[in-house]
């Protein structure tokens, strides 16, 4: 889960990384008390959960005189379709130089990877393409508490050495907050010292419980329902509902729909050993998506009991057509139950998907 900018900056501040003086407001009326502290020039930043909000008009400059007017304007805007409910009002920094610093989980080395460049303020992907030599990298050993000094020296190069302790502090945050990404871009030098001008923290979903973070607040009702049942669920915008067991098989079913010229409405992984009630809940959930015309159920695996699955599909009794591919134990019983109720059951995933694409067309 990605933290909002003000949440990420609070985490940085607590860890001793300087951030610009800032105040979170939830309405225009909340701004005036902060105007003195914000000074003559400040920035208003919409706290919305989308990337590229600057270009989408989510960041506005303001001053003492027009502050409330600009805040009112920003609260009235939609940023990439999302309403602005929170604004971070932040002091403007007198920037001398911008650096980039991030820590990620490196899949190849199976360890944390620290990236630092003297060219901050730009997307790291752009730097990686245009000046890959400008990016300095270090792998951190997860069994050692701090990053060894020699690695910090290699990372920093000719940049101010005061950045060293900031890298170590960000590394502590990365470890202690179970982050998948901890990024400061830009990290800036000013006459008043070094500041994290913008910050991004993504917390591992599997660690939200022990970190005490509330699971994603921006769930739709159906996503919340899926979360309650323990389904992996992603909503897309097609007409064919998909229920599978296992992430890979479900994804592959989605791809096959595209291969045959259809459009999937969702991804739903019911998980292993699906009992009848779980299957019923899954079918009802997908059936409740207004755009869904037909549902493909693709369940495979040694321990999936086909009669249980059949019971669940029948109990869901939704108006849309449900086309089933089932392989596992008690296959004959499951098939007989479905056929008796008039459901279609086909032998391969190619066949069910092809059929569903026909029905949806």
């Amino acid at each position, binding site marked *: 889960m990605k933290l909002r900018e003000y949440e990420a900056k609070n985490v940085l501040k607590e860890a001793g990384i300087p951030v610009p003086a800032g105040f979170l407001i939830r309405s225009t009326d909340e701004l005036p008390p902060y105007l003195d502290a914000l000074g003559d020039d400040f920035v208003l930043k919409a706290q919305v959960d989308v990337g590229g909000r600057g270009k989408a008009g989510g960041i506005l400059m303001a001053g003492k005189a027009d502050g409330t007017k600009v805040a009112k304007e920003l609260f009235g805007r939609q940023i990439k379709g999302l309403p602005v409910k929170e604004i971070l009002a932040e002091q403007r920094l007198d920037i001398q130089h911008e650096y980039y610093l991030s820590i990620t*989980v490196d*899949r190849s080395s199976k360890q944390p990877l620290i990236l630092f460049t003297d060219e901050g303020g730009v997307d790291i992907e752009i730097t990686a393409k245009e000046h890959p030599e400008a990016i300095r990298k270090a792998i951190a050993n*997860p069994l050692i508490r701090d990053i060894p000094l020699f690695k910090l020296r290699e990372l920093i190069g000719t940049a101010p050495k005061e950045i060293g302790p900031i890298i170590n502090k960000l590394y502590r945050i990365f470890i202690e907050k179970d982050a998948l990404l901890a990024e400061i871009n830009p990290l800036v030098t000013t006459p008043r010292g070094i500041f994290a001008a913008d910050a991004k923290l993504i917390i591992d*979903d599997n660690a939200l419980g022990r970190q005490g973070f509330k699971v994603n607040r921006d769930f739709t009702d159906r996503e919340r329902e899926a979360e309650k049942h323990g389904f992996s669920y*992603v909503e897309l915008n097609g007409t064919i509902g998909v229920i599978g067991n296992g*992430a890979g*098989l479900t*994804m592959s079913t989605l*791809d096959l729909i595209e291969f045959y010229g259809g459009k999937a409405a969702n*991804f739903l992984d019911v998980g292993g050993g699906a009992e009848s009630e779980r299957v019923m809940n899954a079918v009802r959930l997908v059936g409740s998506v207004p755009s869904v015309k037909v549902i493909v159920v693709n369940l495979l695996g040694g321990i999936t009991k086909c009669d249980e699955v059949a019971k669940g599909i029948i109990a869901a009794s939704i108006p849309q057509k449900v086309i089933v591919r089932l392989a596992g134990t008690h296959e004959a019983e499951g098939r007989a139950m479905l056929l008796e109720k008039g459901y279609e059951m086909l032998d391969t995933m190619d066949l069910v998907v092809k059929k569903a694409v026909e029905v949806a067309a």
Partner: protein
Amino acid sequence: MIYGDKKTGVLVQGATGKQGEFHIGLMNSYARQVGGRGVIAGVTPGKGGKEVHGVPVYNTVKEAMRDHDISASVIFVPAAAAADSIMEEANAGIQTIVAITEHIPVHDTMKAVAYAKMEGCTVIGPNCPGLLSPGEVKMGIMPAGLFSRGNVGVISRSGTLTYEVVDELTRAGIGQSTVIGIGGDPVIGQTFVDVLERFKSDQQTKAVVIIGEVGGNLEEEGAKSTDLPLVSYIAGISAPPDKRMGHAGAIVEGGEGDSRAKIARLKKMGVPVASRPSEIPAMVRDLFKGHC
């Protein structure tokens, strides 16, 4: 076989849990079928002295190791304790650990994998179905009925999708040497590179099927690292960016891991990529015509 055979003595951690108990039964019925040793000991703290399907249960891994000749293990313990189980086993001298457990925080996995490496131990998974070498050994939860013995290795980030592909191969008369699920998490102990290295030194394996998915670039790194004949299939071409598709590792992040780009890179390296699972057997047969 590359991680174990009939002679491999297996330990199960989390032996008295629902999952552990169920799969000890299945692993040992497979062992009886092929004449292997199978699961010979279990561990659950506080349940020492019990038996599960006739398998003795111990409180600690060290106690089990004292009484039995064990070289591999399968872990079913819950996510909060799983990383600790990996480290306990590595420390006790187990050589190969299969971690089935899902939802282990990535930082725990990074630590456990680094610790195991320090102890000279190999970790497969987490969040994986384990491995099966037909006719030799089953360490994990794969449905044995779909498999047949042969010369094709299979490496996959998925569970059920692997069964789908194995089923297709078996129906087409193409047997498997070892089928291994390396796990759906961003950090896993054995990557494609590691497993391909094992397959390279395995006499039985003549070609390998790589089943990948959206997220990261471990598939390409694997393909680059070997000269074994490969066929690949990548799931997730219809996955939208920044959405996690079930597996913690199945996500396009920072412009990296997009399935289409991955497929293009694999094709550029000369690896044939199937556009759906049912195309894989014919592509494997083409490989054998060309190379073997």
